[in-house]
């Protein structure tokens, strides 16, 4: 029997205690809906930011597209539960499930095949993937529709509350998977671009997604999403339990990823792409892997978010807000899991909580004057973020033992001149 390291015990124990304490506070009404919502939004933000931290903090890819995958996840999950809760149909669930399974399998299969062809450029590979996924997506759609009735009947055999939770759970997971697959298709050609150019292309994705969501009822043909009118009728079932569970899963997945050979390869790409290539690491492959995993978390978080307010509006996914996770990870300490989580909660608590409570009467308009000032002061005093390079032992245990090159040494102005990795 393998011995569990002490750091893991402390982490799981601490997480359990923290969860129980907060849950008790909620159960006894000590933590009212205001703080409860902020906590849940903070946890969702933490998941999105952890995904971005993986992409940017650990892999050095400057992505502004996290918000697009968050949006895709949110609308995908919302549509699934909407159809179940309001129409009693498992159509959304089955169609997305089939699309995710079919295209996922196709992507995995094509990867093994295409990797045999040397010198295949990214764009050609992209065309092949695109064509395949489009065809399979259509097939999956038909199969999904056919499976709707029997699955709905099976789910209806369960008690309604349980069935809803089951649908919700799958909706969130599928939202993440769908976001991951879309990020794969999009990332394939785009990841060949260098640093800032990649950032701008992903920003473009965020803007395009927002435009499509604005017209989701007309251009995309999802009448229930109501486009710019906002989608209503989504069950509000994201509880503290669910967000916390998914947050812990995200942390553990991140940690275990870092603990693997994959993780070390991902880190090596950030540190020095060329050296990594020289060591025989398939840089393009690891970039896309990180991007896909990071986007999966974004989709997951989107699925959770959709069921907090029970209302989705494209404006939530505006490109200006797409800087929020970036602010969070830099604020918390780039490349630090601990810092990212702390940053996400601090961001939510300060911006929505404390600034609301403590700004005097008549100064409500000052909230967004104070917030950038805090951000500025913080950045000037501690450019490497609150937590800098600190990690809790649980995460630190899996990082390469000796990590002298913290991000700040590496990306100083002069290093940049010769080194283009990361922004």
């Amino acid at each position, binding site marked *: 029997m393998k011995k569990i390291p002490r750091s893991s015990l402390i982490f799981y124990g601490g997480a359990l205690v923290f969860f129980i304490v907060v849950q008790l506070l909620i159960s006894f009404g000590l933590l009212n809906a205001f703080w409860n919502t902020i906590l849940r939004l903070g946890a969702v933000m933490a998941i999105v930011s952890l995904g971005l931290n993986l992409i*940017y903090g650990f892999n050095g890819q*400057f992505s502004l597209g996290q918000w697009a995958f968050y949006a895709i996840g949110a609308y995908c999950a919302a549509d699934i539960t909407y159809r179940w809760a309001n129409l009693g149909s498992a159509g959304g669930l089955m169609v997305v499930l089939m699309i995710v399974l079919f295209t996922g399998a196709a992507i995995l299969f094509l990867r093994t*095949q295409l990797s045999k*062809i040397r010198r*295949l*450029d*990214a*764009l*050609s*590979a*992209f*065309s092949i993937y695109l064509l395949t996924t489009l065809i399979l997506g259509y097939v999956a759609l038909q199969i999904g529709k056919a499976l709707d009735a029997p699955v709905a009947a099976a789910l209806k055999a369960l008690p309604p509350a349980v069935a809803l939770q089951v649908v919700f759970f799958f909706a969130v997971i599928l939202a993440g998977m769908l976001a991951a697959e879309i990020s794969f298709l999009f990332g394939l*050609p*785009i990841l*060949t*671009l*260098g640093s*800032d*150019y990649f950032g*701008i*292309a992903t*920003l*473009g*994705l965020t*803007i*395009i997604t927002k*435009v*499509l969501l*604005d017209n989701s009822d007309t*251009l995309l043909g999802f009448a229930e999403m109501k486009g710019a009118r906002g989608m209503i009728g989504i069950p509000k079932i994201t509880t503290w339990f669910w967000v916390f569970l998914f947050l812990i899963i995200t942390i553990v997945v991140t940690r275990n990823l870092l603990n693997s050979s994959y993780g070390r390869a991902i880190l090596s790409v950030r540190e020095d792409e*060329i050296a990594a290539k020289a060591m025989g690491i398939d840089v393009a492959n690891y970039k896309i892997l990180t991007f896909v995993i990071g986007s999966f978390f974004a989709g997951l978080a989107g699925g959770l978010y959709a069921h907090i307010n029970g209302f989705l509006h494209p404006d939530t996914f505006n*490109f200006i807000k797409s*800087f929020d996770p*970036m*602010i969070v990870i*830099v604020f918390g300490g780039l490349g630090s899991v601990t810092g990212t989580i702390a940053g996400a909660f601090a961001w939510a608590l300060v911006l929505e909580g404390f600034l609301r409570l403590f700004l005097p009467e008549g100064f409500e*308009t*000052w909230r967004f*004057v104070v917030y*950038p*000032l805090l*951000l*500025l002061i913080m*950045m*000037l005093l501690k*450019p*490497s973020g609150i937590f800098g390079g600190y990690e809790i032992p649980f995460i630190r245990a899996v990082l390469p033992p000796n990590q002298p090159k913290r*991000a*700040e040494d590496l*990306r*100083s*102005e*002069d290093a*940049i*001149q*010769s*080194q*283009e990795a*990361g*922004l």
Partner: protein
Amino acid sequence: MSVSSTTANRPSLYDLIIKRGWLGKGLLIVVGLLALWKIVVSLLANPTLFLQQVINGLQLGFVYALIALGYTMVYGIVRLINFAHGDVFMVGAFVSFYGIARFQLHNWLSNLAPNLPPILTQAVGTLSVMAVAMAICALLAFTIERIAYKPLRNAPRISALITAIGVSFFLEYFGALKFVFTPNFITYKRPFEITTWFVNTKGIGQLIQGDTIPEGSVIFSNIFIIIVIASVALLMALNYIVQKTRVGKAMRAVAYDKQTARLMGINTDWIISFTFMIGAALAGAAGMLYAVAFPQVFFWMGIIPGLKAFVAAVLGGIGSIPGAVIGALIMGQAEVLSAAYISTPMRDAIAFSILIIVLLIRPTGIFGEPSREKA
């Protein structure tokens, strides 16, 4: 996917499609041909309307060009995406607004010398308002650079980016306070009246307001002329500064290699500040021209033009001055033509798709140098 027996000399179809990347190129070519076809069809369907839209796009493109230059110059030197640039643009628009509406700055010459021809006094007045807007923006950029960016010169690049976002938010919401610019949408007072002309095969004439446009003619206004002239003049001035003066030479040196430039006795801090100021001055001028063309000022107005100008800079190859201009002109046309002929809801999406496609073909933009990576 049967492996075809490739002979040594003749590449098989499979080789052509897969190995030489013709599949990917084919995809791009199909997209490009579709767009071209659309343009040709629209041109043939109604040539005057098409020409009209091109003029509209040109006017927009030149304003974008002035903003894009600020982004591209700053990026060329410090590799910072200066998100606050769009808000400096906003301040420029507001300064010119107050100069005109409150201080009547555009009338100073006609007040002093009422006998001069109005066209001269108006031109001088407009130019002075623009000069004030440029000066104040330059000062603002200098302050921002010294307070918010200089201390971070040796910090990770992302910290400076986040600071830039912070400065941007601050300028917006501070501007939205009641005693600063107010949160209102304010109608801009132009320093001169609009005149519109129409051109057709028979000749040129002035369009009286309220009249319909004569059949088969293209119209343009004095705003269009002013924007084009002012932009071209400013671009030439900038080109002169960068190419011919000592400061310009120093700027290029710093952009190329900061360390060495410092060793050569160039005061790099000053040069960086100077670059920010020049960029901001151009943004100030652009702010005024933009407000003249689209007569409304409000605290939020810098974000979208700023973003689009930034995209234009990237499209042209960030760091390159001619690239910024060409990129901006392309952006202007792309936006107007896609709104006119493809789909208005998708115009921003189309503009970004063009950007992504251009980047896929030329990964550092149209005029961008190949990235200097360690070879």
